[in-house]
């Protein structure tokens, strides 16, 4: 099972704050995950996540190269839009 967490505006875009996927075919790479977002969460979510300002954390570590992401069973992925303060 792989857990995906949506923060800030992305929770609105996803319509929920997290999803869980069971990967029957093993590891998931970046294109696999974007496809899952559009097909199983909400149409357009993949585009929202593609925004260059969205950072990706794997198990609590922000990835320097998000497109190199490989998610395995038990992993937690977080999509982090720009922080908002003020």
């Amino acid at each position, binding site marked *: 099972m792989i857990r995906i967490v949506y923060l800030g505006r992305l929770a609105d875009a996803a319509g929920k704050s997290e999803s869980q996927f069971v990967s029957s075919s093993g590891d998931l790479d970046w294109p696999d995950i974007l496809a899952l977002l559009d097909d199983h969460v909400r149409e357009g979510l993949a585009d929202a996540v593609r925004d260059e300002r969205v950072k990706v954390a794997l198990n*609590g570590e922000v990835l320097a190269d998000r497109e190199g992401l490989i998610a395995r069973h038990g992993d937690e992925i977080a999509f982090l839009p720009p*922080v908002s303060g003020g």
Partner: protein
Amino acid sequence: MRDIRLLTQMFIPGTLIGPFTQANPGLGGVCTFVGEVRQDQGVEALELTHYEPLTLPGMHSLADRAFARFSLMGLLMVHRVGVMRPGEPIVCVSAAALHRRDAIDAVDFCMDHLKSAAWFWKREKRATQNGESQWHWIEPREQDHSDLARWHS
């Protein structure tokens, strides 16, 4: 004395600052900043979302940088998450040092980073024309980015 916390419940800054000051005997000065939810026209509530695996470690890393950059005896950094009403405290940063420059600058440094470089997402619930309320995400102000840039030299 180092005290870094995320709080999910309303807090009273005075109950933190008194003990913090007592815990740093021999200090020359303590600077404290308390931020509250402003009573802006039509704002009914503020919600701060965080991502536990990043937000608290990020605050600890910020405290490390403050201790490395300034001569501090103690640092208190407390941030609320969850839903808050106007007038409630959001953040309290207090720095104790031998000299005022370090205490004041450390608070300034921590606040600038908490405001625009910490893992918080903020939205406001505002009244609409028809009497209902809607949530709106808040973007950092330009001023927040220029404040932060002061520390990069």
